[in-house]
């Protein structure tokens, strides 16, 4: 996948995997020599947020924009204004990690006037193995509702089909088939299929984005 636009936006339903993908894409861009600012505008999740990686990602040259100090853990909807500095700064790629579901999309909409379509690639991340995504019809209704609420034009679907460590090639096949049908229904192309490293699964239908899991539980020793 060639990420061509300056601003890459990852949105989707709650728990679809936006944060892991935003972190991995940021890391990928820095490996290609780019400077990246990752804006954590997730005001929904209290844990497992990209801001938790602020220190370890600084060493890769990735600037994570999120409330600082004690406000990082406050249960408050804070959007740091410095995001717009990076949006205007020609030296930086900007990755937006949006909060989940409708409330997350509304936060994105509040920034949309400063995010012109021609500078943005907006990705709708989806895991069909999550609650409320059991049919293509349901998934499509979530897609349209979130697109409308975000006031952004969604350019791509991201197939993040997984059931964690129990993901098999059969899981990925099922997911690709589901996302293909969704893609036809909503007339938006699929950017890539996400595969966790170590699984050694080759997606059949779409390009692969191999990712590493950063949001680990304390008992998951790296």
């Amino acid at each position: 996948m060639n990420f061509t636009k300056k601003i890459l936006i990852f949105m989707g339903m709650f728990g679809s995997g936006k944060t892991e993908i935003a972190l991995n894409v940021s890391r990928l861009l820095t490996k290609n020599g780019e400077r990246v600012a990752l804006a954590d505008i997730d005001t929904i999740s209290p844990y497992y947020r990209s801001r938790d990686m602020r220190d370890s990602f600084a060493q890769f040259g990735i600037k994570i924009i999120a409330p600082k100090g004690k406000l990082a853990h406050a249960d408050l909807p804070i959007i740091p204004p410095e995001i717009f500095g990076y949006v205007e700064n020609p030296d930086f790629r900007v990755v937006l990690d949006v909060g989940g579901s409708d409330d997350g999309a509304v936060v994105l909409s509040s920034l949309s006037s400063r995010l012109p379509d021609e500078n943005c690639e907006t990705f709708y991340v989806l895991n069909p193995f999550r609650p409320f995504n059991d049919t293509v019809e349901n998934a499509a209704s979530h897609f349209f509702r979130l697109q409308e609420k975000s006031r952004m034009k969604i350019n791509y679907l991201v197939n993040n089909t997984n059931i964690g460590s129990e993901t098999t090639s059969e899981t990925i096949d099922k997911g690709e088939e589901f996302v293909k049908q969704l893609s036809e229904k909503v007339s938006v192309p699929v950017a890539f299929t996400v595969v966790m490293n170590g699984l050694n699964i080759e997606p059949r239908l779409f390009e692969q984005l191999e990712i590493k899991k950063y949001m680990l539980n304390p008992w998951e020793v790296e």
Partner: protein
Amino acid sequence: MAERIMVKGNEAMAEAAVRAGCRLYFGYPITPQSEFTEYMARRMPEVDGVFLQSESEVAAVNMVYGAACTGHRVMTSTSSPGFSLMQEGVSYIAGAMLPAVFVNVVRGGPGLGDIQPAQSDYFQSTKGGGHGDYHLIVLAPGSIQEAVDLMETAFRLADNYRVPVMMLADGMLGQMMEPVVFPEYVKLDGINDHSSWALRGTDGREPHKVTSFDIDPVRLEEMNTETHKVYEEIRSKEIRFETHDLEDADYILVGYGTMGRILGSVVKMARKQGIKVGLFRPISLWPFPYDELKKAAKGKRFCTVVEMSTGQMVEDVRLSVEGALPVHFYGRTGGMVPTPDEVFKELVRLIG
């Protein structure tokens, strides 16, 4: 649908409650359990259930009290400060011997605390919290699948014994995501026949009375004695726990809930280095597995209890082993979670 899907702990417990036959949910959102309330708001209308967001936790618990009087499966979910607000109602529900399920997704305390995970509500859950001689059955799942499986157990125990049951989780369990298989929907026909006492209309019969009150001290004592007979039966029948690598162990680690997962990693780390450590994980915190832990600890050199608190369950561990071996404690608080690494270092330090 016996398919594995990826679910957050809060969503999973809520879905499991629906499948266990809960159609009456009253609650008030609080981090880190708000997804529970949100899930129920979306899900209850699909199954012709009642979802009601109350104006406060005080109201929610009294709605649960009222609904529980009908003998139908009813629940609420909250997090630490919210459960504190519910204590009066919990005591009334226990006093009136009503089945109800509470979920507490524990966060840092005391007071407003913070929104990170903690285990500092152990005393409140297992030893009262509200006033009077009462107990809640307290179940502490260590994984999302276990939480799902225990949810039906929680409702069944509440039904069978007419006691309120608490699922004690922590913020981590509420927020993390794991693969889960949900059980089939429970068939409720005939399994919770509460017609002898429940308030469901008086057509053709004398009115029932559900109360925690008796002005006559002789009768109140009788009522309390009856309740305590039920508690005795629960103590003898409803002990739940899990052990790992205990047989040849020299040392024993004790932790509940997600802490059990972390201690599982510690056991693996220690075993790799030839240190023989085993794990005891209580699942029912009330009734506490006193005798089982005493048996498990026999002949071991020492026991270390690890909690996300300044030391609460450790008191029950000391009561279990009755001084037969030293009981050490390691804890973090305020939402800090002990890592396997730091617990392992502490273990090595204690071995000396």
